[in-house]
């Protein structure tokens, strides 16, 4: 029982991190109907900015306070992601209003390559580390309930908390503020939103900014776990099954989809793995996504697309 619980919690925590990346996809898809292939590149770009500035800033200012260095680096990285969002709207999206989905998809693919290349040009292409002072050692919990207790990875736990906090504040922002309402309006109907005086361009910049921040947070968390390197871009691929499962248009879907996939991966690896020779973790999410595409293509919470004939 303790082992099951341990696996379950581990799954939930890694699931929360998938949700974070998936959230970036969902936000942009909801607001502009664009499937943003550049989300992975944005994660890498943001993580690189964070890693490098947390090195550079202490060197420039001659200080050795890790906390302050991280705070400053975070602020600079947020600003950089805002500039990226603004440039993307200015240079690409603005000219693609009301274009086919495939055109927009290709545009984001282009943005992904530009960000990949540009990021590594200015920030370098080595493996960098982000040290935000997350505790690495695991702790034992619930020792009174189970014999031996259960082992929790503190770093994962904190990361999951941060992710949850971000998700909650974004949901509140979307539901309760006037800008959130305008974002939902644009997501529902571009044309009508524009005709009542919601500025499409500005809303898009805001959405890409928010997606940029989620990319930054995801980049910092994954980066401090795995190191900042090119393979971070593939995290986006891990989030793909999550959005298929949860539905491309649903914020709660991204969260629950992430949790299901996180838990499913871990549990199947532990309990089914021995029978099929292991390695389930690698393909489990994609199989699940495939099954969903066959039987429920809109995902768990997505809008069902009904075409009038």
């Amino acid at each position, binding site marked *: 029982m303790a082992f099951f619980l341990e696996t379950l919690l581990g799954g939930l925590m890694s699931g929360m991190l998938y949700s974070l990346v998936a959230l970036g996809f969902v936000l942009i898809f909801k607001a502009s109907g664009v499937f943003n292939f550049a989300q992975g590149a944005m994660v890498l770009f943001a993580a690189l900015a964070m890693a490098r500035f947390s090195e550079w800033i202490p060197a420039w200012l001659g200080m050795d306070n890790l906390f302050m260095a991280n705070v400053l680096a975070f602020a600079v990285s947020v600003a950089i992601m805002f500039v990226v969002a603004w440039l993307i709207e200015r240079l690409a999206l603005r000219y693609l209003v009301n274009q086919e989905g495939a055109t927009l998809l290709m545009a984001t693919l282009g943005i992904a390559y530009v960000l990949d290349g540009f990021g590594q040009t200015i920030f370098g292409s080595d493996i960098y580390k982000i040290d935000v002072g997350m505790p690495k050692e695991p702790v034992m919990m619930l020792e009174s309930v189970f014999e031996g207790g259960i082992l929790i990875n503190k770093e994962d736990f904190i990361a999951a908390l941060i992710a949850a906090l971000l998700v909650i504040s974004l949901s509140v922002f979307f539901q309760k*503020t006037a800008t959130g309402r305008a974002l939902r309006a644009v997501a529902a*109907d571009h044309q009508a939103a524009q005709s*009542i005086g919601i500025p499409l361009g500005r809303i898009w910049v805001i959405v890409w900014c928010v997606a940029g921040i989620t990319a930054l947070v995801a980049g910092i968390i994954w980066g401090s776990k795995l190191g900042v390197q090119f393979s971070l871009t593939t995290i986006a691929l891990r989030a793909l099954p999550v959005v298929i499962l949860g539905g491309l248009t649903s914020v709660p879907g991204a969260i629950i989809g992430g949790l299901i996939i996180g838990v499913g991966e871990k549990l199947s690896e532990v309990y089914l793995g021995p029978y099929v020779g292991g390695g389930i973790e690698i393909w489990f999410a994609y199989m699940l996504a495939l099954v969903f595409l066959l039987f429920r293509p809109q995902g768990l919470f997505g809008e069902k697309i009904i075409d009038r004939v």
Partner: protein
Amino acid sequence: MSGRKIGEVILDLKNISLSFGGVKALQDISFNVLEHEVRAIIGHNGAGKSSMLNVINGVYRPQQGDIILRGKHHTNMDSYGAANAGLARTFQNIALFKGMSVLDNIMTGRNLKMKANMLQQAVWFGAAQREELEHRAKVEEIIDFLEIQHIRKTPVGRLPYGLQKRVDLARALAMEPQILLLDEPMAGMNVEEKQDMCRFILDVNDQFGTTVVLIEHDMGVVMDISDRVVVLDYGKKIGDGTPDEVRANPDVISAYLGASH
């Protein structure tokens, strides 16, 4: 129509031509709209009514012609610009924000009037909250006016067609527009719903002094509520005047009765 006084020309359309490839949707159309009047554009399907409205609203840009709003040229505006200039519209195939409640839908209409910035909104207390409450009060007035109190919290997707049309009108009214453009406000409604809608349009015009430009192909309704009527046929203007004048116009009669085509 008691309190209102028809004023000066508020919107002047001059020699508007619009084509899509080889299709000439509008050919050299000119007419004007006076302040506080109810102006109707009528015509058969494909006559160019909706194109005309979309030109006024900035969705389409005409290849030729001039749009003058309160003495200012507005030929190059987009629909955001139109909203900013005091034009609000409803849509023929209802374009409400599905999934959002009636209240949220109408509140979006206040967007242009909101001043609090993102940061203030993120903090929520203070300026943003005060503003939200003010706008909410205004929206409640409109909800009362259109008699949709009982569906305030309902997601719009669940409402019957007639009520959706009313919410669409409410959202446009929330903008406190000077000119209200209505794209077939009565289409697909039963007699009772049509009567309600007519009453609302006349009340809006009467109480708020809002200038109304509406498209309709239900001749009976249009003739009853409009001050002046423009008749389009295959992208050309064939009649313009008071309902009685239009009814007596031989071109309109032939177009509608198909006498000499």
